[in-house]
């Protein structure tokens, strides 16, 4: 196992190509759920969890069902990628949600309520598609999934912290709410641009 390579993937997904600020994935929840710190943390944890599951299962589906080189029937079904990924992710997340709600109600309150929001989140489908595009192995896909989730959480929690403070500030009326959030995201993205000069590996 090449630990150095995994480290590069992780740092890349968390900082250099941060999902929200550099790749523009998951903007809707980023703007929607960043109003309070506590819900941002819950959402972030849920995203890490779902991204990991999505990376794992979408990789399995792709390799064993769709990819002509490795699948059971030896024919090219890669055109079914989008449709099968969304099915698998949506189905699994709903399944996990039901299980948590029954077996761990307190965990459900903290984390589970964010799960349905994530099924149709482009960041989750995005990480699954990216894993395939980059030809990652199963372990690499998992690391990329977890790291992308951490990167999303980082951006979300930072944003929520700023927005909680911003509640006290006197923002011009036209800029209040979503517009100022975007402008702040822009400033954060400038900060994250600094990481793109980072060379790892």
């Amino acid at each position: 196992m090449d630990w150095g390579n995994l480290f590069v993937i992780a740092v890349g997904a968390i900082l250099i190509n941060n999902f929200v600020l550099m790749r523009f994935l998951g903007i809707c929840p980023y703007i929607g759920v960043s109003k309070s710190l506590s819900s941002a943390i819950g959402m972030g944890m849920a995203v890490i969890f779902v991204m990991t599951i999505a990376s794992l299962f979408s990789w399995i589906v792709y390799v064993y069902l769709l990819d002509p080189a490795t699948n059971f029937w030896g024919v090219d079904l890669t055109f079914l990628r989008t449709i099968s990924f969304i099915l698998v992710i949506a189905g699994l997340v709903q399944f996990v949600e039901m299980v948590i709600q029954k077996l761990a109600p307190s965990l459900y309150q903290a984390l589970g309520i964010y799960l349905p929001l994530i099924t149709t989140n482009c960041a989750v489908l995005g990480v699954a598609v990216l894993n395939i595009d980059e030809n990652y192995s199963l372990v690499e896909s998992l690391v990329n999934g977890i790291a992308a989730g951490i990167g999303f959480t980082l951006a979300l929690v930072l944003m929520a912290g700023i927005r909680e403070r911003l509640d006290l500030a006197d923002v011009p009326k036209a800029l209040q709410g979503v517009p100022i959030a975007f402008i702040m995201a822009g400033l954060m993205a400038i900060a994250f641009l600094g990481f793109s000069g980072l060379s790892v590996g």
Partner: protein
Amino acid sequence: MNLRQEFTKGLVAENPVLRLALGLCPSLAVSSSVENALGMGISVVFVLTMSNLIISLMRNIIPAKIRIPIYIVIIATFVTIVEMIMAAYQPALFRALGIFVPLIVVNCIILGRAEAFASKNSIWPAIIDAWGMGVGFTFALVMIATVREILGNGTWLNMPVAPAGFEPVLLMMLAPGAFITMGLILAMFNWSDDAKAKKLKDAVIKRAGFITEQPKTERSN
């Protein structure tokens, strides 16, 4: 509501990006050039129209409980078709849009319109609604892309428009430029809304007849 209104409501009054804040990811990601924005817009118009059409046709036979998975599968099918067509005929554009082509599936606009409109209306209104919303989306994308491409590259649809000596602002082409442009455009729309609302409010205040004095309890002793 007639068909014309169904179309025009998506352009400004209920513009999906600028008013409803839906489909934000692609509108930020592919708006670095007008060309990409147009490509994305046309893809969305196609998927939206076809999915609205099919869902409207099937609206009476889709069971309510599992409607969302069905919508997603229908939408994913058309996204796959777009993906294949674009890869075959517009490979450069396909590479530029990259991951955001398959991600049209999870664009809130499409699922939102399927649920809010196509599932309850007959075919023609559903198609017109899709056109209106799709064109509205394209319009918003092109608007953001125009600002970013002119400032960031000095061109518009790959044609040089900037005056001589113009130094392109690279930042506008990068991620921060997208966020900041989006924020300012949304603010502009809010501002014009506020100006209209203020006029209305002034009229109401005038009619209600109070501006400064609290209507005080009247007492007789």
